[in-house]
């Protein structure tokens, strides 16, 4: 049988950076094919070539056995290639139906065509058990349902080859399971699926073949049944990965943070946080698990002083955090920082660094008032010395303080942020999504730093949507769903199914 897609000696360079080097492999028709690799391994570039965003410098692309030149995404769609992006491409205030029709309206008059498309959508939904109401408005849908809309869009455009880019990053365990059901159904119908992911568990669970990429090259192509997680991980990173990082025995100290009845209601009256209470002790890592968008971000913003709660109380080292009597949180993060609260924000580029500042300038970000000389001006000598020390201690690469931080990889930017926050010697460290968009090698380094901090007696509140990360770091797990705490369990009772249920809002009762 002819393969659905064949890459032959694909190379693509961005000047001196070889994003893809002589990539050759085939994807069988009717198979679920995994493509894995660290950030910068060349997966995205390769898929972008397949989907017509980039043109390969050399090599051939064969679709159903025929050499094709795909210059735009229109060409790709015409060849039956569909892509579900990690960040959904949906107009939130339009209905599912209108989103599907967008770009293929079928003429000037909408109404007639709309009825036709609606019928077809209902038929597709039934056939693939997609469970989406074509007339629902997108922003009313859950993340999982929005993803199904994306899939629906691709099937409507008669995609036979479906590329899914990190599809489970935003899903609960249950939603992931139902996505996989849909994918298996696709496979039965003879469609081809390319799954890009970094989650090895998923690769093992659902794929038929796996291609492993590293440094722009294919370093392995195996049948899933004949490989293991460990083997794949080693291939991805190119060296063995420690699965268990060393940590001191759990000896929690005095309470550092006590959150009591915290509420947050937005201007529309939606409860973003609903009666959240928990405590955090010195030398303890409490991880807040949950699907993103369930109140974790708001909780971190409140605890770091970036946002005011609408009710409730927070005690930090026995002292009320000063939320009351204010109309806005302007300047409050500076106060909290002075109290000894460090914060690694989950959206690094939005909050954590100034992309256009140099690495060195970013190492004092948030602490700009602590680096003045007696004239009240910046003490550049001290800043440079401190920066050089941090870059060495946290192994930031390239070790160049004058580089704009926007030019560093995500992992190295994150190391700068963590180095900066750690060096301020906080008593409480708020850490949001510390390894989002960070490659495996760096994840290990970041986890090691956080555990070291814990062993030194710092209280750490971690928010992560990666259960793997929660398992690797936490002493205690708090699960949030819909702005409420739905469960709490010590790490010894870690259980994916149970946590998944709690994440989906099933209360412990």
């Amino acid at each position, binding site marked *: 049988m002819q393969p659905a897609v064949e890459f032959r000696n694909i190379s693509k360079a961005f000047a001196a*950076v070889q994003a893809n080097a002589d990539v050759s492999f085939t994807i069988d028709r009717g198979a679920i094919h995994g493509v894995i690799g660290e950030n910068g391994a060349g997966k995205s570039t390769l898929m972008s070539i397949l989907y017509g965003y980039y043109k390969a410098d050399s090599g051939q692309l064969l679709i159903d056995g025929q050499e094709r030149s795909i210059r735009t995404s229109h060409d790709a769609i015409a060849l039956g290639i569909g892509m579900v992006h990690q960040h959904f491409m949906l107009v939130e205030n339009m209905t599912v139906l209108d989103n599907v029709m967008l770009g293929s309206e079928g003429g000037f008059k909408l109404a007639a065509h709309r009825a036709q498309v609606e019928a077809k959508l209902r038929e597709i939904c039934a056939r693939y058990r997609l469970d989406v109401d074509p007339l629902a408005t997108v922003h009313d849908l859950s993340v999982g349902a929005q993803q199904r809309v994306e899939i629906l869009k691709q099937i409507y455009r008669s995609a036979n080859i479906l590329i899914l880019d990190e599809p489970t990053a935003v899903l609960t365990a249950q939603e992931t399971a139902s996505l996989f059901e849909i994918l298996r159904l696709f496979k039965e119908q003879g469609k081809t699926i390319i799954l890009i992911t970094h989650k090895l568990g998923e690769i093992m669970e659902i794929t038929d073949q796996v291609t492993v990429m590293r440094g722009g090259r294919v370093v392995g192509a195996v049948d899933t049944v004949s490989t293991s997680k460990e083997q794949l991980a080693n291939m991805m990173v190119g060296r063995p990965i420690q699965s268990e990082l060393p940590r001191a025995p759990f000896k929690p100290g005095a309470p550092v943070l006590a959150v009591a009845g915290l509420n947050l209601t937005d201007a529309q009256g939606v409860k973003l946080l609903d009666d959240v209470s928990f405590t955090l002790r010195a030398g303890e890592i409490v991880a807040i698990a949950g699907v993103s968008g369930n109140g974790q971000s708001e909780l971190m913003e409140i605890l770091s*002083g970036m946002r005011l709660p609408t009710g409730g109380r927070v005690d930090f080292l026995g002292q009320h955090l000063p939320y009351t009597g204010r109309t806005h949180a*302007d300047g409050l993060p500076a106060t909290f920082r002075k109290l000894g609260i460090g914060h690694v924000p989950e*959206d690094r580029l939005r909050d954590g660094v100034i992309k256009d500042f140099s690495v060195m300038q970013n190492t004092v970000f948030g602490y700009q008032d602590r680096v003045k000389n007696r004239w009240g001006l910046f003490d550049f000598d001290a800043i440079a010395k401190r920066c050089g020390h941090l870059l060495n201690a946290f192994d930031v690469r390239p070790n160049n303080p004058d580089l704009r931080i926007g030019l560093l990889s995500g992992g190295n930017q994150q190391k700068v942020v963590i180095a900066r926050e750690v060096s301020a010697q906080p008593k409480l460290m708020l850490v949001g999504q510390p390894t989002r968009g960070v490659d495996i090698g760096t994840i290990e380094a970041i986890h090691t730093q956080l555990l070291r901090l814990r062993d030194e007696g710092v209280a750490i509140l971690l928010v992560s949507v990666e259960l793997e990360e929660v398992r690797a770091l936490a002493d205690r797990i708090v699960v949030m769903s819909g702005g409420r705490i739905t469960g709490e369990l010590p790490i010894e009772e870690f259980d994916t199914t149970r946590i998944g249920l709690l994440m989906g809002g099933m209360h412990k009762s």
Partner: protein
Amino acid sequence: MKKTELPRWATAVVLPLLNLLSALLVAALAIHLLGESPVESLSILIHSALFNLEGLSYTLFYASTFIFTGLAVSIAMKGGLFNIGAEGQMYLGGLGLTVALLAFDNTLPAWLLIPVAMLGSALFGAAWAFLPGFLQARRGSHVVVTTIMFNFIAADLMNTIILKLVPAGQQNPASRVFAAAAEMPRLNTWMPSLGDTPLNISFLIAIAALVIYGVMVWRSSWGYQLRATGLNQHAAHYAGVSISRMVIVTMLVSGALAGLAAVNSVMGSTHYLSLNFPAGAGFVGIAIALMGRQHPVGIFLSSVLFGALIQGGFDLSLEKPNIPPETFIFIQGLIILFCGAMENFYGPALLKLLNLGRKG
């Protein structure tokens, strides 16, 4: 490695020069169409504005005003605020110093009178910028819109006020002439070779302001927070900057600088407050901030360029009757178009060229 952005020397030097060249090229075309030789006209312009001492000192006199309006727009821009209102703030600054001078010019000695008047201009300029800043900070009303509106309000307000200040029997719609103590000391007092020129110590104060601006923006914690706010408000908030306070303070400083621009125009030259004395200097400040990339050296050079255009354009229209005096406004407009609106016009091409050179 393939560059995705231009190196600093290219954005700081090559692009502005290319933009300037393009503007001059179009201007040359216009002069050609007017029936004059572009080359000859340009050489007259340059000679008159730069290569004789008297012309040069006139150029620097105009530049002194522009440095202040350029600084006003620049500092706001560094904080992410587009202050279009320097014109109105400068106009009000003129009122501020006039109020001080009308009250004290017959009583205070010059060494005290001049600082008091300067303070008045800065205060009034800042006050005029306060409300747009406050509305932006607390109500989210866009500062571009409010400062434009405030220019109009300033124009009408000043119209009313100045007409009230006209002494009985005077034809000129202006305040009375200030006492001699209010005159900014002219530099030709110490350097007679400068010729008959209004160039005064405002120029030296402007240079000092450039230096202070440079130090404050790049070497102080406040400037660091200002730049952070300008680049990414979310991150600045994370870093503990009080955004609303920063916005208001930035507008106050910007307005004060624009107000100070009135000192050179009023106390350095006319010695009375006249209708519409800013004559577009506030708007030229926008072009200067863009072209000079908010850098002290850039602001200085662009201020001198615009000063030279006024001085040279004036002489040019005297020598070449075919070229109307408005031509320099036309050239100024072209420069604003190329350096402001089309700032990055040549960027992509230059980038391609550089990458080509690297490969080859």
